């Protein structure tokens, strides 16, 4: 599984941070251009997957612990729902971001930022988890 090619390794060492940086750009630039939480999550997940392809699953699982990923995927959905509940506590309807801040437009900004973040976190961790589970299946079979 582990690729011992030096060039490939050092190249991806440079590439993976760039991919993740791009994911963050997509995450936070979704308001102005195409993109948003889901796409960012997929790209970030792809970065994690690339890491596990190059450096091997055991190492990838040390950096991105499956248990932590599990917490994160739940946290994303939870964050989204909590924004909805917070809007209720602030006197609006469920997911009514206008009540989150004094100025409705600010509230909308804040709400969208948070829920997109929730989507991104869930999607990235789900993609990575699913891929880990698939590759792990093969490693166990080989034994």
């Amino acid at each position, binding site marked *: 599984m582990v690729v011992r090619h030096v060039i490939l390794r050092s190249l991806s060492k440079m590439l993976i941070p760039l991919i993740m940086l791009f994911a963050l750009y997509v995450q936070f630039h979704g308001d102005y251009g195409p993109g948003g939480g*889901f796409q960012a999550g997929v790209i970030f997940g792809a970065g994690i997957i690339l890491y596990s392809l190059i450096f091997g699953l055991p190492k990838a699982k040390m950096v991105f612990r499956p248990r932590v990923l599990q917490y994160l995927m739940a946290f994303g959905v939870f964050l989204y729902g909590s924004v909805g509940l917070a809007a209720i506590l602030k006197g609006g309807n469920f997911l009514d971001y206008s009540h989150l801040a004094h100025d409705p437009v600010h509230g909308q900004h804040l709400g969208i930022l948070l829920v997109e973040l929730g989507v991104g976190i869930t999607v990235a961790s789900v993609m990575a988890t699913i891929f880990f589970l698939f590759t792990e299946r093969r490693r166990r079979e080989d034994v």
Partner: protein
Amino acid sequence: MFDPGLFNYWIIMILMMTGLYTVIVKGNLIKKVIGLGIFQVSVIMFFVSMGKVRGGTAPIASESFEVYSNPVPHVLMLTAIVVAVATLAFALALIVRIKEAYDTIEEDEIRELEAGEEG
């Protein structure tokens, strides 16, 4: 009879049927899943097509454009793509388990094995 304004939809329906045919006829489970994917993507194309406005541009507000394509179908289809990939991931995991349990992913062979169990 031939209406260029409908050409788009006709091709999409044909693509859709290509997917459906693969699902119905192919016994290989992976082929079936690929067929499902084509079926779903064609429906996505259908929605996106109906959102297009002649001379319009991508629905991102800016000073330099007047006419925008309809953003609503795009939003709906983002959700549909997500649903499709979620279904795909689960289906593939199921196929892996089926392979482990039956040592085949061909529908007719699975059916034979199951008939043997019952008989």
